């Protein structure tokens, strides 16, 4: 990324210095966002390689490629890296870091040094986890259920737990920074109800990050103490209660699911508004539904333990509360859809991702309702139905939104335009590959194929081959953006300040922005989405395009 070359005249955050230390010791939120972008792409590749091997093994019913132990390690590495080192930092730490100060008209986040420190914590935590992987792996699954993780597993549980513990603090510090920045750093005139919806959602995400992550930290700490000091906080042999671990773990990890979707919803709100040239329908409802999801998200963790021996009455309460999450989620989906109505819709790449998000998230959310039903969950618990469900949310939802956001803000981040034709082609390829990979898994799960086994009965083979074939298409789909985005750094056309004719504050400064973002602190006199007024140059909506 340091090799970006742009015509000399305007000084911006990329060409202000080129040395390694100017990157590694930077306190510029935009550069730290790029450090995160590079780091999480690295972890995405690791998680992707593990997923590839898992899908290859599942091409045949027999365990002919991998041993059971290796398979266990691979799906654990896939889960751990994708959840903790890709999805959770993806939009908050890359786009959040880059965009929050720009969108609110600030020079930087409230605590720039803390921001850099959080990236270093991320790297240190990641190093532990990579080391654990290289040194022999870990086989507990990303959920670390006790007493297997605390007593019986002979793999590198400690190093992985330490890695996630440290990375958790990176996530806490990012959330803290965003909360304080949103409260205290907004430009004059930028009231809460003039904020872009991305800020609402990233703020709600940050609340979850700071309130849930510490619970994961103490839980992993207890697992580590249990392994290290030989005590039995979660070990039934020593009077401990394994279910307590599951309560503590899911008290973090269920809200963490919303860390992995809320920012995507924020991105989609921006994309839908820009590519329909409309103010989002029901702005306040979309904003508050982010908070509702964050709050409800803290009250539903018990739906992961319907079959773990939890009291049936607790199960009923958790089931009802889980249904409640559907309300704010549906509010968003209906509002995005209503925004399309009578909008001037254009199908640039980011919009393709946004539309993909809306459909796939809806499928993922609806199947979540199946799982929240006590009786149905007994049937599909720990089957591929669950795997398909959460991949529709995390990949179909969050990764789509992340890619949509990266494409949308790429001109602002790098000062270059990406090749639209290739980008549209790969967006469609990813959509097709994704559905072919994961839709058969709903069927597999409903027919009773359990997750986390490397062998399965012969009758499941056709659906598994379909899934693996889809995964190969998906992999190719991901390689395209990786290639043409890097290509565009050198050969892409120079981006104007506002290639989309969008209305946010981030589009009012140059592309890429100067180090302190704005030459003068902007004064805000209207809300974020004044598309009915045309764009900054006064062009009417239908004339606004990229070319």
């Amino acid at each position: 990324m340091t090799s970006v070359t742009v015509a000399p005249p305007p000084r911006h955050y990329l060409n202000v210095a080129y040395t390694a230390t100017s990157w590694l010791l930077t306190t510029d939120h935009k550069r730290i966002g790029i450090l995160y972008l590079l780091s999480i792409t690295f972890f995405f590749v690791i998680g992707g390689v593990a997923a590839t091997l898992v899908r290859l093994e599942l091409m045949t019913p027999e365990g002919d490629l991998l041993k059971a132990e290796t398979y266990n390690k691979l799906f654990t590495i896939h889960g751990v890296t994708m959840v903790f080192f890709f999805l959770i930092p993806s939009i908050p730490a890359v786009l959040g870091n880059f965009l929050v100060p720009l969108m609110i008209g600030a020079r930087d986040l409230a605590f720039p040094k803390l921001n850099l420190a959080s990236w270093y914590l991320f790297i240190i935590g990641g190093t532990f986890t990579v080391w654990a992987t290289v040194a022999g792996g870990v086989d507990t699954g990303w959920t670390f259920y006790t007493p297997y993780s605390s007593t019986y597993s002979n793999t590198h549980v400690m190093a992985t737990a330490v890695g996630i513990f440290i990375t958790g603090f990176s996530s806490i510090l990012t959330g803290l920074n965003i909360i304080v920045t949103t409260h205290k750093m907004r430009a004059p005139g930028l009231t809460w109800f003039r904020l872009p919806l991305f800020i609402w959602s990233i703020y709600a995400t940050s609340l979850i990050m700071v309130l849930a992550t510490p619970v994961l930290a103490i839980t992993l700490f207890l697992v580590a103490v249990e392994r290290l000091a030989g005590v039995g906080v979660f070990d039934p042999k020593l009077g401990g209660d394994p279910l307590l671990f599951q309560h503590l773990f899911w008290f973090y990890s269920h809200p963490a699911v919303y860390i992995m979707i809320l920012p995507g919803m924020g991105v989609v709100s921006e994309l839908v508004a820009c590519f329909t040239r409309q103010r989002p329908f029901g702005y306040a409802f979309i904003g508050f539904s982010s908070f509702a999801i964050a709050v409800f998200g803290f009250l539903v963790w018990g739906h992961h333990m319907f079959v773990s021996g939890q009291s049936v009455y607790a199960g009923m309460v958790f089931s009802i509360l889980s249904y409640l999450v559907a309300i704010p989620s549906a509010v968003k989906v209906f509002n995005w859809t209503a925004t399309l109505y009578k909008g001037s819709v254009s199908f640039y790449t980011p919009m393709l991702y946004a539309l993909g998000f809306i459909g796939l998230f809806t499928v993922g959310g609806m199947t979540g309702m199946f799982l929240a039903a006590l009786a149905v969950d007994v049937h599909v618990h720990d089957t591929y139905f669950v795997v398909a469900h959460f991949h529709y949310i995390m990949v179909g939802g969050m990764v789509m939104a992340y890619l949509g956001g990266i494409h949308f803000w790429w001109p602002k981040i790098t000062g270059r335009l990406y090749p639209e034709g290739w980008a549209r082609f790969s967006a469609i390829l990813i959509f097709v590959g994704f559905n072919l990979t994961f839709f058969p898994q709903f069927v597999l799960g409903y027919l009773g194929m359990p997750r986390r086994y490397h062998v399965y009965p012969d009758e499941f083979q056709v659906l598994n081959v379909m899934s693996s074939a889809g995964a190969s298409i998906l992999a190719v789909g991901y390689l395209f953006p990786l290639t043409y985005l890097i290509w565009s750094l050198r050969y892409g056309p120079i981006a104007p300040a506002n290639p989309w004719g969008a209305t946010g504050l981030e589009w009012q400064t140059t592309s890429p922005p100067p180090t302190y973002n704005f030459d003068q602190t902007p004064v805000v006199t209207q809300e974020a989405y004044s598309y009915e007024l045309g764009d900054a140059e006064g062009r009417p909506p239908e004339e606004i395009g990229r070319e």
Partner: protein
Amino acid sequence: MNDLANPLAHQFDDLDQQRDAAELGMWVFLATEVLFFGGLFLAYAVYRGQYGEAFAAASHHLDSWLGAANTLVLLTSSLTMALAVHAAQTGQRGLLVGLLLATLLLGAVFLGVKLYEYHHKYEEQLVPLFGLPFHYEGSARSQAMMFFTLYFIMTGVHALHMVIGIGVLGTLVVLAWRDGLLAERYIPVHLTGLYWHFVDIVWVFLFPFLYLVGTR
């Protein structure tokens, strides 16, 4: 110390905004700490509920007088800390250095007493960690083990927070000595004060939960 000339960081418009941001940041951090300790208190509540009698019996092996004395020490340190914040705001350098040192020393006394208690438990063979011999006379041995496990983890995590606080106080003493923390530069003292009071409050809960279980 390089920013002695200008205490305002580039991203802020004025000192008020900078102070508000720092203060809110500290409160958010303390909220994360509440959740961090919350996990431990939940574990304690679960096992206390399941093993109430065994916890009461095991609790009698702790010296509640030492615990009470330590509570007094820590609450006094909160007083000196609060006075230190006032001294910083009003620009009294000598008083500030003295009060920060007093807070630091009281914290050290607390940790000394804690270490003595740990050592005493070791001699009584009541440390269920690292495969050390665990010699317990009562009926419910494994339940008492759980009590002592939680005792060591909870007070240990608390003590770790005390050590960090003492480290920060040491840094503040040096800065205060060099005139770095007076008047509009008092924010670091104020934030450390918030942290220190939080750590004290955790102990205010730990003391009755661990030392005063059941009737004596």
